[in-house]
């Protein structure tokens, strides 16, 4: 095998191997575990960087392994997968640091970090999957590896959340499996290719293809939390903060959205989707999700639940951009994949900091938290503004491209959805910001724990800070080479190439 074949495997292995070793290590070998974790994360970032560089120079990275006839395990790196894998790699590094700080002195860290790494392995695999089957394999693997993370605390609440998560995710997976098999019996093994592979299909099969599309979307929609398949997500908030962060920003929810992007662009092909007439329903569902999620977020008292509903809403931007189709909307959807991740992870980091340092979990307990934890809340503020789509944050760039994309596709109503959602976002985020900065703090915090010389421990403090700065930079320097926006444009160029 050549380096070109090894590299995708190495990228996957860079979290698989540390994860596996961590399971074997003792619970008390903290230093070794931490070192392994960080080493894995750093190596992954480096490998991804190499790959990023290579792909921008038109290198091919591909590896293939036959399981059964018609069932190939294939990893390959195209521009889209790199976008996602870079996000996963960078945010994994940050989340690992965060998790090390967050779980200090808590039990069962071996299990946690083991599954954490496996979860990232699955996500990386998803990103690099070269065909629908490989995608499916990692998709299911993701479900399984996140379950222990969701129920990590082991309380009745978290067990219930875990059950609900599995119920949704596995059912979605089952539907997906059916759809994939069906598709395969119709057209043979489904490889991902830039402009889709189905446009040559016999028109007699169009009906079936539509149904399959619906099934695929339903399958991925469960993880992407499309309404009405979103029920598990707000419940899964009982998980520790780094898990929520990872779940919402990179792993689970994003995997679903990424799957839908793959289906629309790389399996069906954007144009062919339009021809089948399946994009408008998808766009409508996405729009419904955006609005519904925001509406529900309005009245959540629990901070993390509010963020969860916000995720329901925000992730659907990706689907919306995908469904509208057209180069600009696609750019918007794809770039939101990254932007939403960075912003949402900041919010969850900050929420985690509040909970861990001050014991603040409810929205009305946040009063004055900005004075006690200025850096954390500043990060929170930036990310929240980003969610609203305030320029010059990353969120604005996404919204802008979605907006002009909608105009380009003559879907003017989408702009209305975007605006309505932004307003709703403002309604549920701005009071939090107000409470944090402009309200006076209480006499005593619910559960304050001293955490060293900063406002909280450094491992908790810096990850949100970095992602918040990223939120700003991604917006301000959107036009910079190698920025997600430019990268998304590259993807779009391939997708809509003549």
């Amino acid at each position, binding site marked *: 095998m050549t380096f070109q074949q090894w590299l995708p495997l190495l990228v996957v292995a860079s979290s698989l191997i540390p994860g596996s070793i961590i*399971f074997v290590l003792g619970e008390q070998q903290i230093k070794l575990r931490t070192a392994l974790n960080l080493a894995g994360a750093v190596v992954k970032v480096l490998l991804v960087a190499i790959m990023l560089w290579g792909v921008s120079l038109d290198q091919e990275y591909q590896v293939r392994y*036959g*399981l*059964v*006839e*018609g*069932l190939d395990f294939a990893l390959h790196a195209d521009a889209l997968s790199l976008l996602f894998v870079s996000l996963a790699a960078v945010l994994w590094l940050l989340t690992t640091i965060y998790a090390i700080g967050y779980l200090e002195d808590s*039990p*069962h860290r*071996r*299990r946690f970090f083991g599954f954490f790494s496996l979860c990232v392995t699955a996500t990386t695999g998803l990103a690099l999957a070269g065909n629908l089957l490989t995608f*499916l*394999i990692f998709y*299911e*693997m993701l*479900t*399984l590896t996140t*379950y*222990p993370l969701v*129920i990590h*605390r*082991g*309380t*009745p609440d978290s*067990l219930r959340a*875990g*059950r609900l998560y*599995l119920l949704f995710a*596995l*059912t979605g*997976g*089952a*539907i997906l*499996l*059916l759809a994939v*098999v*069906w598709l*395969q*019996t*119709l*057209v*043979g093994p489904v490889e991902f290719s830039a402009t889709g592979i189905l446009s040559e299909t016999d028109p007699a099969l169009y009906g079936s293809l539509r149904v399959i599309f619906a099934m695929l979307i339903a399958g991925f929609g469960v993880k992407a939390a499309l309404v009405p398949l979103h029920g598990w997500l707000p419940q899964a908030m009982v998980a520790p903060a780094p898990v929520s962060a990872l779940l919402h920003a990179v792993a689970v929810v994003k995997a679903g959205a990424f799957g839908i992007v793959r289906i629309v662009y790389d399996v069906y092909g954007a144009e062919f989707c339009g021809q089948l007439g399946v994009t408008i329903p998808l766009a409508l569902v996405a729009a419904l999700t955006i609005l519904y999620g925001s509406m529900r977020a309005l009245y959540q008292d629990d901070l993390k639940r509010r963020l969860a509903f916000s995720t329901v809403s925000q992730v659907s931007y990706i689907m919306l951009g995908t469904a509208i189709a057209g180069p600009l909307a696609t750019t918007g959807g794809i770039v939101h994949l990254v932007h939403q991740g960075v912003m949402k992870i900041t919010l969850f980091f900050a929420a985690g900091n509040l909970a861990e340092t001050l014991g603040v979990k409810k929205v009305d307990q946040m009063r004055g938290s900005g004075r006690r934890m200025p850096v954390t809340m500043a990060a929170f503020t930036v990310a929240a503004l980003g969610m609203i789509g305030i320029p010059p944050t990353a969120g604005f760039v996404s919204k802008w491209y979605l907006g002009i994309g909608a105009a380009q596709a003559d879907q003017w109503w989408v702009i209305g959805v975007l605006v309505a959602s932004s307003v709703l976002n403002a309604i549920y985020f701005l009071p939090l910001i107000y409470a944090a900065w402009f309200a006076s703090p209480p006499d005593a915090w619910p559960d304050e724990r001293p955490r060293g010389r900063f406002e909280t421990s450094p491992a908790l403090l810096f990850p949100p800070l970095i992602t918040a700065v990223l939120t700003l930079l991604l917006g301000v320097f959107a036009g910079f080479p190698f920025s997600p926006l430019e990268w998304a444009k590259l993807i779009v160029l391939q997708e809509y190439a003549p």
Partner: protein
Amino acid sequence: MDAEWAMTGLIMVPLAAAIVVYVTATRFVAAWGVAVAMIQTGLTFWLTRSILQSGPVQVPLGGWEAPLGIPLYADGISVLMLIMTTLVGATSTCYAAAYFSALQHDPRRSSSQPTIQTFWPLWLILWSALNALFLSADVFNLYVTLELITISAVALIGLAGKAQALVAAIRYLFAALMGSLFYLLGVALLYSTYGTVSWHLLAETVQADVLTWCAASLMIIGLLLKTALFPLHFWLPAAHANAPAPVSGLLSGLVLKASFFMILRLWFYVFHPVMPVSAGWMLSVLGSAAILWGSIQAIRQQRVKLMIAYSTVAQVGYLFLVFGLACEPMGMLAWRGTAYLAFAHACAKAAAFMVAGSLMYMVGSDLLDRWEGIGRREPKLIFALALAGVSLMGLPPSAGFIAKWLLLNAAIGNGRWEVAAVIVLGGLLAAVYMFRIIGVSLSSAVPMPETMPIPRMMRWAPLVLAMVVIVGGIVTTEPIRLLEIGAPPIAAREVAP
């Protein structure tokens, strides 16, 4: 050394060891068992290699040709079954060695509990009989080996000694004997018509007439009872759940597969041309019902071992889907999937039962309520259970996934949506009961009651077996290639265009 020796050895070595162990009543029985396991592993490896190289082999035992002699026959499916037997058998042997030695030091031990001396001969005979069955080339020989399996299996259940186990064993024995006699009557009818018991010769001469159909019905239905296909599964849960820890895995993993293997042989190699499609679908419908019923019952159980036993009822259902699907264009896929599923299920189920046994030994009960937080103490075991569960649910990466993938492909490719739906639904229901166990065991509540320390081997054996299941989901080309050797003539459109 050629395949003949390997085949003979696979049958004779455990048998001889059984006799030696029984007669000498040596203190080092476990060592004998492990030695046999190692030899078996070598022989299986050898046989597999030779089959892969030179195709199916038939050898007359001791040079006596049929009809008087006893011929042995090995093709892809039988070798896969042998591999399965060896894998499960070897790990069970190690597990049993640890289990019984631990039991001797268990203060909770009652006088009625099994002794190490009775387990080993019975198990070695069972092993020998299983190998013999998978290598049999005539239908009467199949009967004899099956009876041998039944008798030793029942005795193994009886080892547990408790009244519950005895009742289960007796019930199982009656059911099994009844099934055997149905089968034997069918054999008699067949012989009267065709004058031979070799299934090769039968396959060549079989005709569609009433006597053949009678024989086929009697044989198949008799075997259904032994395979515990719904609605004839009534004896299974109690028998499998109340057996001693190492035995449950063997029963669910291997003993059931013996009678199923016979059905497979008879159906696809003998009766296939003369049985109508609808008869196959009857079995598939029963299989579907089994999947649903078994899963629902498993969900309802409070005892973990019963849950796993009912899961077997469901998984057996999967195995029977092939009879309907094989009649259709993509039948070949269903055939492969089913054979592979039998293999996957054996490993996964044995691993699950071993885990249950270990944990039951640890806390003294397999009531799910008593298992709260157990995973925090024994993460390896719960991990093994989870891996086995992954295969039972048919999730990737596992052998169970590959098998279900093939079955699903066959079902959807043939437009059999109801079958596809059942396959998928069964997987989901499996997830419900598996995660019920895992969820409870990972809960943070309830301080653990006083427990027994688990010997190391009782942790590693199930984990190894569970790993096999996972590896079986990754290394698949070889087993599938193996299955093509001597595959039955099923109408085959290989894969979709």
